[in-house]
C-alpha cells in the first residue's frame, strides 16, 4: 500500500514504458559513431568496417602530411585570434549591458548581440559571401582579415553569455565598497570587477575558441583560395576518399575539443563560486 501511494504521488519518468530502451538508443546514437570513428583511426588496414589489427600508421601519416599541418595551424591561429577579439568585445558588451544601469533599448541590444544564435548559419554564410565578395572586388585584399572578422563576429555571443552571466552574479555593493574605500573608478575595475570577472572571461574565451575551431559554414563561404581550416579541409578530402587518416585527424580534433570543454567545466565550476 505504502509503495503504491508513493508511486502515485510522485511522477517518475523512469517508470514510463520504454524509458530504458529510449535512453540506451539515445546514447548509442550519440556515442557509437564516434567510438567507431576513433576505433578505426587505429586500424592496421584501410577499411572502415573490418578490423585488421592495431597500428598508429594513420596518425603517422597525418603528422607527415604537410597540408594537414598547415590547415591545423591555420585553424588554431584563427581560433585564438578570433576568440581573443570576440572575448574583448564581449567583455566590453557585458560591462555595457550590466554595469551602467538601465537604458532604453537595452533588451534590443541584448538581442542584437545574440544575432548569430538566432539567424541560421547558412543565411549568415551566404550574406557574408556576398558582402565579402563585394569588398574583395573593391579593395583587391584577399588576406585572412575576412575570416578573422567573420569568426570574431560569430563568436561574440558565445563569449558574451558566460561573461554576462558572471557579471550578473557580481554584487554591485562590491564596487560601491571599493569606491567607499578610496578606489577611483579605474582602480575599482582593476582590483575588484576585473579579477572577479576572470572565470567568466576564461569561459567565454574557451567557448569562442571551440566555436571558431568548429565552424564549417562560415569559413566555407568566406575563405579565399588556400585558406582552408581543418574542418573545411576535412570536408574537401571526404568528397574524394575516406581513409583512416581522416579518422586520426578527427580523433585528435575531438581530443582537443574535449580538453577545452573539460577545462571550461572546471573553471566555471570551481572558480565560478
Amino acid at each position, binding site marked *: 500500500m505504502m509503495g503504491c501511494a508513493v508511486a502515485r504521488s510522485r511522477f517518475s519518468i523512469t517508470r514510463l514504458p520504454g524509458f530504458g530502451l529510449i535512453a540506451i538508443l539515445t546514447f548509442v546514437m550519440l556515442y557509437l559513431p564516434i567510438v567507431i570513428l576513433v576505433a578505426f583511426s587505429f586500424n592496421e588496414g584501410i577499411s572502415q568496417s573490418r578490423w585488421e589489427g592495431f597500428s598508429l600508421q594513420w596518425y603517422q601519416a597525418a603528422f607527415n602530411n604537410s597540408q594537414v599541418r598547415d590547415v591545423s595551424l591555420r585553424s588554431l591561429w584563427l581560433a585564438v585570434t578570433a576568440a581573443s577579439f570576440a572575448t574583448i568585445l564581449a567583455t566590453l558588451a557585458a560591462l555595457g549591458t550590466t554595469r551602467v544601469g538601465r537604458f532604453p533599448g537595452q533588451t534590443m541590444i541584448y538581442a542584437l548581440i545574440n544575432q548569430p544564435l538566432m539567424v541560421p548559419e547558412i543565411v549568415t554564410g551566404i550574406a557574408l559571401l556576398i558582402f565579402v565578395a563585394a569588398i574583395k572586388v573593391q579593395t583587391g585584399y584577399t588576406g585572412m582579415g575576412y575570416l578573422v572578422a567573420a569568426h570574431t563576429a560569430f563568436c561574440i555571443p558565445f563569449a558574451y553569455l558566460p561573461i554576462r552571466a558572471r557579471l550578473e552574479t557580481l*554584487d554591485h*555593493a*562590491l564596487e*560601491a*565598497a*571599493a*569606491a*567607499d*574605500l*578610496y*578606489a*577611483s573608478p579605474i*582602480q575599482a575595475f582593476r*582590483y*575588484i570587477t576585473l*579579477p*572577479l570577472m576572470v572565470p567568466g572571461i576564461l569561459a567565454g574565451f574557451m567557448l569562442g575558441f571551440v566555436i571558431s575551431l568548429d565552424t564549417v559554414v562560415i569559413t566555407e563561404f568566406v575563405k579565399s583560395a588556400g585558406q582552408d581550416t581543418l574542418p573545411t579541409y576535412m570536408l574537401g578530402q571526404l568528397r574524394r576518399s575516406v581513409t583512416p587518416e581522416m579518422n586520426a585527424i578527427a580523433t585528435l580534433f575531438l581530443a582537443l575539443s574535449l580538453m577545452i570543454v573539460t577545462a571550461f567545466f572546471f573553471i566555471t565550476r570551481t572558480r565560478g*563560486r
Partner: protein
Amino acid sequence: MSQEIEITGLNKSFGQGAAAFHALRAIDLTIATGEFFTLLGPSGCGKTTLLRIIAGFEEPSTGVLRINGKDVTGLGPDKRPINTVFQSYALFPHMSVAQNIGFGLKMLGKPKSEIKATVAEMLQLVRMEAMADRLPSEISGGQQQRVALARALAPRPRVLLLDEPLSALDLKLRKEMQSELKRLQTETGITFVFVTHDQEEALTMSDRIAVMSAGEILQLGPPQEIYNAPVNRFVADFIGDTNFLRLRLRVKAVAAGEAVLELPGGKQASARLPASISPPVGSLVTAVIRPEQAEPTPAGQGEMQAVVASATFFGTDTHLHLLLDDAQGFVLRRQNRPDQPSPAPGTKLGLTFAPGALRVLED
C-alpha cells in the same frame, strides 16, 4: 563640540514629474564629532538613502551637505573621509581578510609597512588575528561582520556609516556586537552614524536618535527624551510599548505645559501638555502612558479601576491586559516575583501612576 556633519534643507526624490517618489523631505540635521548617532525608522523610510547621500553614492535633489564644515556636493565616495559598513558586508570575495582590511590604505597609496602595521592593529581591535589569511567565504557571519568593520575603520575615517550592520546576526551575537561596537566607537573616537529599525538597539547604543518615517525626521534627541517625551503618536508607538487613551481635556495651562484630564471612572489627573499643541478644553485628546509607569493597587483605590482580561508571561515580567471602566484597553507591566502570583482573569484592581507619566499627544 564641533559639527562633523551638517545637513540643511535636504530633499531627495527618485524619478521625474508626477511619477517622482520623495524618499527624503526637508531633512535638517547636525551630527557632532565623536557622536554615536542613530537613524531609526521602519523599513522603507529612507534611512539607507540618507546614508548613501552622506557616503556620496547619491546626490541630494536639493539641499546642502557639509562634512567638517566643507560642502561636499559633487564629491564622489572615494573623495570623502567617510567609510561604510554595508548591510551585506560587501567583503571582496577574492581577497583574504588581511587584504580586505588593507584595501582602503592601499588605495590611499600608503606605504606597505604602514599598511601591514595598521592591518595587524585592526585585526587585533576586532579580535580576528587568527583569521588574517582566510577568505571571506571561510569565516562565519559574525566574523565577516568584524572584518567589514575593521576594513571600514582601517583608513581612520572621520565618520563611519553603518547600515543595519547587526540585522543579519542572531540575538546573542547581536548583543555581543552591540557592546563591541560601542567599545570601538569609544576607543577610536570616530563619529558613528548607525542605521537600525530596531528601537531597542537604538535606545541602548546611541548618544542621539533621529526617528524617521516616510522620508521625514519626526523627532531628534537623546534616547531618554525620545522614550519619555515622544512628540507624536508614531514615535510613541514605534519606540517601546505604549497605552493610548482617549480622555477629555478639563483644564489646560499651556504656559506651564500642563493639563488636567478626566480619567475613566470620573477622577481627574494632571498630564504633561507639549507646547506644540493646544486642543480646546472639553475635547477628547489622545494621552499616552508606558505600561511600566502604572502600578496596580487594591480594587477601589488608585486613579482608575480595571478588571484583568488576560495575562501574558514574558519571563522577567508579565503583561496584564486590563479593561478600564469605560471599556478602553490598558496594558500593565508587572515584574514577576515568586511571592506574588499574577492576578487571574476577572480580578478587579485599581491603577495608580506617578505625576508626569501621563502625556497628551498630537494625534
